[in-house]
């Protein structure tokens, strides 16, 4: 279990970082999504891995429970990363429609064109 979760986080992060370093917008969006998945799994695991345990205390029986706070954190993080990905897609579309290509970097000539 630990090995599976840890290697999942590692592989997702590695893939995400690799894709972010591409120069085109679509791989960068995919890379940021992979990174946000990695961080979400990481956040869940910060409350220790517990299986089949409810995130609430039970005062009638002595059953194990799991830390609810990371679950709340990860919900917030999912919502934010989802919204941010949507914004990023719109930005990419806007930049693509304005510039005619989907490269992330700006060449010196483009800046000069604008300045002139």
């Amino acid at each position, binding site marked *: 279990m630990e090995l599976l979760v840890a290697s999942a986080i590692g592989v997702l992060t590695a893939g995400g970082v690799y894709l*972010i370093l591409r120069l085109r917008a679509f791989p960068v969006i995919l890379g*940021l999504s992979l990174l946000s998945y990695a*961080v979400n799994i990481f956040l869940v695991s910060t409350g220790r891995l517990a299986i089949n345990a409810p995130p609430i205390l039970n005062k009638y029986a002595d059953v194990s429970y799991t830390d609810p706070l*990371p679950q709340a954190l990860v919900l917030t993080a999912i919502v934010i990363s989802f*919204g941010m990905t949507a914004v990023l897609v719109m*930005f990419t579309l*806007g930049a693509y429609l304005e510039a005619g290509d989907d490269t992330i970097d700006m060449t010196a000539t483009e800046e000069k064109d604008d300045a002139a």
Partner: protein
Amino acid sequence: MSHWIIAPVVLPAMMAPLIGYVMRHDIVLARVASAASTVALFIIALGLAVWAADGGTHVYRLGDWPAPFGIVLVLDRLSAMMVLLTATLALIVLWHSIATGWDAKGRHFHALYQFQLMGICGAFLTGDAFNLFVFFEVLLIASYGLMVHSGGKVRMQAGLQYVVMNLAGSTLFLFALGTMYATTGTLNMADLAVKVPQIAAEDSGMVRVAAVLLLIVFMIKAALFPVQFWLPGTYSNAPAPVAALFAIMTKVGAYAIIRLHTLAFHPGAEPTKDVVTTWLFPAAMVTLALGALGVLAAKRLMPLLSFSVIGSMGTMMLAVAPVDPYATETALYYLVHSTFSAAALFLLADLVVSRRGSDVLDARPPVVQNGLFAALFFAAAIAMAGMPPLSGFLGKLLILDALREPELMPWAWTGILVGSLVTIVGFARAGSMIFWKSTSVKLPEGTEPIQSDPPPAPARGTEVAPVMMLLALLVGLAVLAGPATGYMRAAANQLFEPSGYIDSVLAPVEKPEKAEVDPPLDAADPHAEEEH
């Protein structure tokens, strides 16, 4: 517990959707609402600053949940000062964008502007590390919209870079918070201050990792080397009033570093005690050098101003790095100064560039009101470069005075003094090119001077007023340096006495005397059954 503490967050948060949905077709209404909201924010911020000046740490528990289980907003001298700085800057920049018509060049300027203020004020007020992340996202997502306001090819591309950079930074922030929670079991800043020193020696590596990750995240926001590269592209391609407002955004990163490294990772905490002193000082030195060289090398006015912002962040963080009360006091003074002077330069550049047609530093015929703009640029450049008589000189003098430690002094003094000289040369070159050489530009024989149609109108009084107000604030900061540094000294001393903060936040909540008002549960039950 006073509800006024949350007002700087709630007020813009209520106004923004109202402006965005109800007033989106009526720019006049949106302007009035946005201006009214910002004025109200300024008044509230002023009230909070006066209230916080009593030296207490005022805590606002959301939902009345006791810390560390609930989220708290905390008002002390530093956060009150930062909120007041934000509100003052916001008011002046808003005036400029309304007077020059920038806000009408695209949609939803005012709604995004209010969301931006909400995020910034929230980030300054919160006492919870995860809540800080949320407010960072709020201010970032609003800044994405403001950054590409009024559109354009290069601006969209620069905006895309800015978004990608900050999304990567946010992911890093989450990794840092996860590591922090896994090791300490809390994200409340005051509780962290209690828990971090208790970490067992074998676990201290994880806390250090989290502290360094957080430092990198805040260095991205504060535009420090080696993660400063997003700033020139963003600031020089953003609409100028937005760039002026962004002058406070780099300070959010600086504030977060000051706050966390005097509280959660305070110098007495064994696991993280030398994180800042080891890494921040060299990073700030390189940032300062980069900023100065960038000012000297820039071929256009807007990148030049952006690099001067980087240089001023480097100067300021040099004073943050030693983590001692006097150095922090000088850093706070320089923080206020550099916010206003950067904003003044960007607003002035907007007035000049919109009439000149381009911000390329070459000789072309002078714009209307060349003399007025030249005088204002001279004053603002003096402030930014740190020449007397404006507050930049005093700010740099104070920082030099604070950095007298034998191992820091040769580096810091050389860096700041040489950096200032190089910055002066860069600004002098830009100013003489734009304002002086333009008066001697000779057109070839027989050609008519190219006149744009219609010719650029001279700036009205209302358009120049925001720049003048910022310069007046810089003069005021220099004249009233005594009272100002007095407040900042008190703020710095409060930061370095974290027990007051910790005790206020973690104080047990007084139980409200409800038992006599509410009937006991048993007594109510028969009554309920009767009704059934």
